[in-house]
């Protein structure tokens, strides 16, 4: 099969597999992420979707935005459900009832991936199913109205950890899921951002070329939850990368590689300032939080550089 050259011009000629007319919010990052992932894939794909924004907005009976076979089961089990689909595929292929090669991709938000779906994801990765699990991480339970998840960044104001006079938003750091997934010793785990489309597409292509379980964590701005402008999704995801809040890297067979190093690492506040969910951090009494958050970002970035043999002077 001829592969599409990696240029926007050529990619734009490919048929979009998630149609327009879905009901995601204007300015949402998730459909951009899904479209990029599907553009990167060559050949037949079967997808599973955890309950969440993407699922409820793309398949409301009797309409579907998916041009590929797609299954939604429940919130916490996209990985287990796709394990079933992939296993039936292997069974039927062995029996000679299916001849085509099919790639399997699961999509889940951070709630369905970091939290309630974590066990199901961990199990599927350990069992070695041939699938790529994509988490579109918008940092909270956005579908049910912006509740805190274990992916919610430190300090963020959500509807269940509201910034109040006693508790200033979320008081814990995020769970580092990408590293946890890499610790499953799966052949490929990576982080990507829709602002860096080439990096994202390359990673999806690489992941799909590898047999076995793969995981990608993709930053997905949500203007409702982040309290940001509807046309800022790409700008904000770029700032996430350039401040090293959301480092772009991959861990392939245990080898860590930082795939994008900002020429000049921007201060974290550049990413936080345009977002209403961090507004309270800029009050004088919460200055310590900005400092603590910046320290955590620095620490992760340095450890990534170290792991990739890429220490800054």
């Amino acid at each position, binding site marked *: 099969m001829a592969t599409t050259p990696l240029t926007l011009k050529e990619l734009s000629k490919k048929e979009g597999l998630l149609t327009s007319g879905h009901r995601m919010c204007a300015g949402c990052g998730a459909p951009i992420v899904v479209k990029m992932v599907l553009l990167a894939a060559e050949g*037949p794909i*079967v997808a*599973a*979707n955890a309950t969440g924004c993407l*699922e*409820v907005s793309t*398949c*409301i*009976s*009797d309409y*579907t935005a*998916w*041009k*590929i*076979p*797609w*299954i*939604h*089961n*429940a919130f*916490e*089990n996209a990985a*287990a*459900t*796709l*394990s*079933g*689909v*992939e*296993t*039936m*595929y*292997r*069974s*039927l292929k*062995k*029996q000679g009832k*299916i001849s*085509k090669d*099919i790639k399997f991709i699961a999509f889940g938000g951070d709630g369905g991936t970091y939290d309630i779906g974590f*066990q*199901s994801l*961990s*199990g599927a990765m*350990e*069992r070695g199913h041939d699938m790529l699990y994509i988490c579109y991480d918008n940092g909270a339970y956005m579908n049910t109205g912006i509740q805190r998840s274990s992916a919610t960044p430190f300090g963020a104001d959500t509807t269940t950890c509201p910034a109040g006079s006693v508790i200033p938003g979320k008081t814990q750091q995020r769970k580092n899921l990408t590293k946890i997934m890499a610790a499953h010793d799966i052949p490929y785990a990576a982080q990507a951002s829709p602002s860096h489309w080439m990096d994202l597409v390359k990673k999806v292509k690489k992941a799909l070329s590898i047999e076995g379980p793969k995981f990608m964590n993709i930053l997905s701005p949500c203007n409702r939850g982040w309290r940001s402008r509807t046309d800022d999704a790409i700008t904000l995801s770029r700032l996430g990368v350039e401040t090293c809040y959301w480092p772009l890297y991959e861990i392939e067979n245990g080898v860590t590689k930082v795939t994008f190093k900002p020429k000049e690492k921007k201060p974290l506040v550049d990413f936080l300032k345009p977002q209403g969910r961090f507004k309270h951090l800029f009050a004088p009494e919460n200055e310590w939080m900005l400092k603590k958050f910046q320290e955590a970002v620095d620490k992760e970035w340095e450890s990534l550089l170290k792991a990739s043999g890429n220490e800054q002077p």
Partner: protein
Amino acid sequence: MAKVVAVTGNEAVAEALRQVNPDVSSAYPITPATDIMQRFTSFVSNGKVKTEMILVESEHSAMSGCIGASAAGGRVMTATSSQGLALMWEELFIASGTRLPIVMALVNRALSAPLNIHGDHSDGMGARDCGWIQLWSENAQEAYDNTIQAFRIAEHLDIRLPAMVCLDGFIISHSIERIEYMEDDKVQNFVGEFKNLNPLLDLDHPVSYGPLILPDYYMEYRRAHAEVMSKVPNIVLDVASEFEKISGRKYGLFEAYRLEDAEIGIVILNSAAGTTKDVIDLFREKGIKAGLLKPRLYRPFPYEEIGNALKHLKAVCVLDRADAFGGSYGPLFIDIAASLYPHKNGPVLFNKIYGLGGRDYLPEHAELVLNELAEVAKTGKVKTIKEYIAVRE
């Protein structure tokens, strides 16, 4: 030639599954069902079946995997008990609402707390309204026969619903009985090739499974589910009559034992029916007209047929191996009472709760109930409508 063997209930179910030879199984171990999947995975490891196993990390994922595999397009089965079924609860509704013909052996076991691994019907009763077909089995032979028939019923193109085959934990699952196995080719011909309906893996006709359906159409989907449930009893009878031709064993919606001319009767599920039938024979010898009704198809419940089978009796005691807390009576009693509701001059009813958490059900318990029934039939009066038997008060 059919083979006569001495095996446990679990072994018999595993053998039926080997003969059916499904495409995929997704399962998680739990006492007392574990043994079924242990035996089955040894068939997989030794190339006796074509089945691909998914050895998941929980029962929730077991049923999720079954749903994915079944939607993908192929024959799927699993087995569980008690807490495992409870953990699957959410997925049970999704399997039936998506109309996926998954077959599951449910080795009945008590629910925690307190933790107890022994047989009662709390697990199956808790799942009675989840839209699955339920076939209950008195012994290893019935568990074997029901397992084979369950695939035909679940996969019937007019039905396409998941089915569970219930058998009593330990009492049946771990006791050795004499049973007859059919030949492999007979079972395979009976079950037939799996017929796909909108498989997810059909790339030429991409489908979306699991849509969001809002108030404009949700109710019509539930109505359709109710409608298809109503078609199940006739299909169960058709499949049973075909099964009789190849096995010589007759099945219906329920078993009526010495019921036709009976004046008093016991309604009871699964293994305890065997003990009760022996005691009924003793009462018959004494000239007391006693009979028994043992439901086989518990969901959908054949209200009309069971009501007609019991309406002529003077007194009926329903024995429940589970309680429905806060519902006043045991779950089976509630269904029997509902089936007799249209019959104004029907029998006097009362309810006993027995055998919870594996407590023995002995012939003397059946005797006690039959003596009370004889008394109630005479006086037409019931002292206590519901009580626990063989329990420390």
